[in-house]
């Protein structure tokens, strides 16, 4: 077990190192950041000077070495736009993103599980087929477009929910959240619904497929034969086993939610890391893009690591070599 953990940990660092190389190479392609730093009327001499301060006059290898040793020490440079440490910018905006990502995931799970179990247990019913068609529509629509339609219907026409922004926030453990007040919660609803639809649809399809698979097993037949109640068979024996493979897609789901949060946050002007990324791309704010990339890579690698280890613990059939 310990050997497995160590091996996975080493793999984690290799992946992060490769990502750092890729990020560096990509950033070197995107042009010279010196012009972001100097005034428009800067002289040749001033530009040269700025390049020297930034270390851009040195070879790419030396530059990469400096880049790597800086990020290992947690120094990602300062944002060209905000003149603040880039890591601090991300950390300030992270709670906003986590808030909609987790609410979206919770909504997706709460709705997808019962519907998926139902559709899996009664695959031939008309209502199950309608649910499956509905989930296929959910997979097929562009999430950001759905967000716009929701804004138009619920914010512009019905004026039930605010159309953008985050509303009032309060501080919990040094992070600002908006779900604590009613106004803040209202601001959360539309972005979270928008973000959850795609995940909800995929999750429902996976749970249905898993349930159909599990319900064919002998232990289900046995449970039915001994006269267990239908609901008990479905949820206790069926769902419990159907959910195990779901743990492996948790990492992917979280990744997709964070990726699509960039679009959702842009539409709802939600001040999270996704909107920060899109804004930074527009402004060519290189340090912020780099720190976003490294941070998200770290997050995914960490989540996948936890998922793998958890899976090995939960499912006794998996032997760790």
């Amino acid at each position, binding site marked *: 077990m310990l050997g497995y953990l160590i091996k996975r940990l080493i793999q984690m660092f290799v*992946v992060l190192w490769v990502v750092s190389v890729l990020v560096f190479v990509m950033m070197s*392609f995107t042009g010279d950041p010196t012009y972001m730093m100097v005034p428009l009327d800067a002289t040749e001499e001033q530009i040269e000077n700025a390049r020297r301060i930034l270390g851009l006059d040195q070879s790419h290898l030396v530059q990469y070495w400096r880049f790597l040793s800086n990020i290992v020490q947690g120094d990602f440079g300062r944002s060209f736009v905000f003149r603040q440490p880039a890591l601090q910018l991300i950390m300030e905006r992270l709670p906003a993103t986590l808030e909609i990502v987790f609410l979206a995931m919770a909504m997706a799970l709460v709705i997808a599980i019962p519907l998926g179990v139902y559709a899996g247990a009664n695959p031939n019913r008309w209502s199950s087929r309608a649910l499956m068609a509905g989930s*296929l529509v959910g997979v097929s629509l*562009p999430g950001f477009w759905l967000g716009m339609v929701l804004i138009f219907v619920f914010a512009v026409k019905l004026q039930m929910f605010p*159309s953008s922004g985050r509303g009032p926030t309060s501080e919990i453990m040094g992070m600002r959240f908006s779900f604590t007040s009613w106004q803040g919660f209202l601001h959360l609803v539309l972005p979270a619904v928008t973000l959850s639809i795609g995940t909800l649809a995929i999750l429902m399809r996976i749970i249905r497929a898993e349930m159909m698979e599990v319900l064919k097993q002998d232990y289900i037949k046995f449970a039915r034969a001994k006269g267990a109640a239908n609901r008990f068979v479905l949820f206790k024996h069926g769902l419990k086993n159907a959910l195990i493979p779901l743990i492996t897609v948790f990492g992917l789901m979280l990744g997709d939610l964070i990726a*699509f949060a960039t679009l959702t946050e842009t*539409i709802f002007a939600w001040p999270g890391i996704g909107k920060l990324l899109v804004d930074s791309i527009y402004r060519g704010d290189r340090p912020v893009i780099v720190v976003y990339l490294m941070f998200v890579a770290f997050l*995914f690698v960490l989540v*996948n690591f936890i998922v793998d280890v958890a899976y090995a613990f939960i499912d006794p059939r998996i032997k760790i070599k």
Partner: protein
Amino acid sequence: MSALAARLSRFAASELAHNWVRNASAIAGTIIILAFALMVSFGPMLVAQDPYDVRQLDLMDAFKPPAWLEGGTAQYLLGTDQQGRDVLASIIHGSRISLFIGFTAMLASCLIGTTLGLLAGFYGGRLDSLIMRIADIQLSFPSVLTALFLMSAFGTGVEKVLIALTSVGWVVYARTVRGSTLREKGREYVQAARVSGLSNARIILRHILPNVLTPLIVVATIQVGTFILIEASLSFLGVGVPITRPSLGLLIKNGFDVLFSGLWWISVFPGLFIMLIVFGINLLGDFLRDELNPRLK
């Protein structure tokens, strides 16, 4: 020609074709896809306006609602945008670009991924580990994010979108083909081909390749839909196709700016068309997955 006719008649007699015309979702998906194919082929000839020829635009016609609403005219069935552009005409031209990108990027991904998968599976060793490690790292990132980063480095452009989509799309083919190749490599017919002294290239192309293609059909079908959605997302964020030839995603972005003034049709209709075509593709993909999966038979 007769060889083609023979193949077609063989397909028509197959079980797949038999089920195809009897399965509701297969029929619906096929109809939607065919309708889109007709629309993007002949649509531009049928609409009166070329939405990207500025001389044909009339600002007096701007902000017209769809024909069935008050103030709408039959001339502009789905209304007009800020510059008097016919929304329907924009959608027809935009669908062309969206479909072209989705389809071309799928072909490129399939070609590159299949080649790498065959090489990795057949030769194994260092090449195999290298390709598969790259694939692993890429899979730990959501495609949309990877494509977004690539586009932020490249800048806008149809060919750049194609490169970005292909860079995220090849992985799934490489993995699938590698798996199948590893399995096929051990079969008797491959050993027989080796014993009879055929070159590796011939064994890979003529013997293994035809036997690893079936699972790719499903992947390729679904991928066209996924690519259309990713392209729409990129263009919506302003890092996809250029404004001069907008895809459906960019049309939604243009309409988003005026959504708050109640002008919903400019952005809602392009989105509906994306949803419809991707839905059609997914319906067909679902049918093919069930049909071509030997485990379910």
